[in-house]
């Protein structure tokens, strides 16, 4: 029985002799594997970015906006009428079983000053449940409490961006900042969330008690009106149920007749993102499939080269058979040759794929997502291609008649 190291040695030598041909055969596999790795990385990167965003806006989030109204035949945009009230928010929390928390918001943009630093940011008056609805982490201090809302205290919880712009390296806790020239005490700092999928900085925010916001910052024309309401459904599956319950409740509360349009809009952000996530997954499968075609073409290239190699080396095969090589020895030799071609191609293609994924991610600002799994798949697939496309040429070589092979010119 011929030893494994001898077979490998024989195969390697013949590959080294034909450097250019070996390189060209490998190139097809390199491009194939590289394309698969890159495409899968782009696809999973995109969908993991969306997953991150779903997590960052808060899961199962429902947004209730004041409705568009029609004035003299002209339809206005969302929020043109302030149709939502504090009591709407309370009613949703109380009467919609699929909703676990509700946070109404009275907000606006304001100039914020600390010492000689100033920054323009979104200031949101809200209730304690905002922490639950948006799934904020507090890294120091505390969030707004019921007590704050009841007494309308001038306290503020600030996002990372605001902390950075106003305080730099200083600890913001307990410091006084001025929002619209009114002093607020910083009682808490929020953890970083990053950007939304529309590129909005979620950390560029200050939360204050909703009562304070109403009274001292963004006084509404009609008291008790809110800019928007955040609601959180119990589970992903109950989002549509919660949406329906909110709609029914609000139509009832706003006394909207059966043929009248809603004076509010309920947006299901999670669902939207889930849909986006699904479509990116589909896209990444599609990209991977297209890339696999190039790997397949690479495999056919290997088969072609191996067939040429078998024909060209017919005499060599004859000599080997004459001195005692069994058909399976010959078969092994050519199989290992093609396996070498494709695994070398697989390794180089993997490196190439990683490099190009890194480039794509740095250019397009996508998170890098080269999983060990996709690398293994690409590598395993290239080895499979080697065996699959190498088998026929190897089989052909092993069934040569030694007498004819020896006579071959």
């Amino acid at each position, binding site marked *: 029985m*011929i030893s494994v*190291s001898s077979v490998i040695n024989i195969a390697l030598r*013949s590959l080294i002799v034909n450097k250019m041909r070996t390189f060209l055969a490998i190139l097809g596999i390199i491009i194939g594997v590289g394309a698969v790795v890159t495409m899968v990385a782009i696809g999973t990167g995109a969908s993991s970015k969306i997953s991150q965003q779903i997590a960052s806006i808060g899961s199962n989030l429902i947004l209730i906006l004041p409705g568009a109204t029609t004035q003299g035949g002209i339809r206005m945009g969302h929020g043109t009428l302030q149709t939502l009230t504090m009591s709407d928010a309370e009613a949703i929390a109380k009467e919609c079983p699929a909703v676990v928390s509700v946070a109404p918001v009275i907000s606006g943009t304001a100039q914020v000053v600390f010492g000689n630093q100033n920054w323009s940011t979104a200031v949101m008056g809200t209730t304690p449940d905002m922490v639950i609805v948006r799934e904020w982490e507090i890294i120091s201090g505390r969030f707004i409490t019921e007590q704050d809302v009841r007494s309308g205290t001038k306290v503020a919880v600030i996002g990372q961006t605001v902390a950075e712009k106003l305080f730099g390296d200083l600890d913001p806790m307990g410091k006084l900042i001025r929002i619209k020239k009114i002093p607020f005490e910083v009682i808490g700092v929020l953890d970083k969330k990053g950007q939304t999928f529309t590129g909005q900085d979620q950390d560029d925010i200050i939360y204050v008690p909703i009562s304070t916001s109403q009274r001292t910052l963004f006084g509404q024309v009609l008291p008790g009106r809110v800019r928007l309401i955040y609601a959180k459904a119990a589970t992903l599956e109950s989002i549509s149920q919660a949406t329906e319950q909110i709609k029914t409740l609000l139509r009832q509360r706003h006394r909207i007749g059966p043929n009248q349009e809603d004076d509010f809009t309920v947006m299901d952000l999670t669902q939207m993102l889930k849909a986006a996530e699904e479509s990116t997954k589909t896209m990444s499968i599609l990209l991977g499939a297209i890339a696999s075609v190039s790997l397949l073409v690479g495999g056919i290239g290997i088969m072609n080269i191996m067939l040429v190699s078998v024909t060209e080396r017919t005499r060599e095969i004859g000599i*080997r*058979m004459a001195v005692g*090589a069994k058909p399976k020895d010959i078969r092994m030799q050519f199989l290992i040759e093609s396996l070498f071609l494709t695994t070398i191609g697989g390794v180089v293609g993997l490196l190439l794929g990683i490099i190009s994924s890194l480039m794509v991610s740095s250019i397009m600002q996508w998170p890098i997502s080269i999983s060990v799994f996709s690398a293994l798949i690409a590598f395993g697939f290239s080895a499979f291609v080697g065996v699959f496309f190498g088998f026929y040429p190897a089989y052909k070589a092993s069934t040569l008649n030694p007498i004819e092979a020896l006579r071959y010119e």
Partner: protein
Amino acid sequence: MALIQVENVTKIYRFGEHELKVLDNISISIEKGEFVCIMGPSGSGKSTFMNIIGCLDTPTYGKYFLDGVDVSTFGADELAEIRNKKIGFVFQQFNLLSRATALENVELPLIYAGVETKERKERAKNVLSKVGLGDRVNHYPKQLSGGQQQRVAIARALVNNPSIILADEPTGNLDSKSSMEIMEIFKILNDEQGLTTIIVTHEPDIAAFGKRQIRFLDGRIVCDSNICTQERES
């Protein structure tokens, strides 16, 4: 039983509807230690005979006993093993691997015999020294003369201690001086080690090295020197 015992062997090649009887009911036995030269015009069946003796081919009808074993029914794997262990081939075209050194060429049968690297190199070197190429082990075939290449081929044939050396026109591509050197090697191997040697040739002065001459014509043995002598004597 003789080392080589061929009984009523017929070989027929089929090309579509045409049949070509290349060997026609041949029987012969060759004892261990014989030096046989086979002669005959091209197409007389001597190469086919050699292929069957060398286990590269099997007869259509008849039996071939090698060392008492009927190999005429063997499959590809078993034939390969017999070729590896019992037979050493020497070809007219030398048939060396051009990309391998003299040493690597000689090692080849030992690789398929599963001999480990160290022993393989040692044995190959020894045999190469025996044929007078001890200083050429790392040369590639194209760096060697025709006579030297054929000596590498002989070393390859000898390296696994075969029972039989089969040489198909081993001097066909050599000048007369190299031819004589090669034939001297065969002669010494036969005289000193009693190695059974069968050589196909159509040159009478080469055939004269043999102790027994067999002549083929149209797929039959028309003259076997032992018998010829008897005929002459009678």
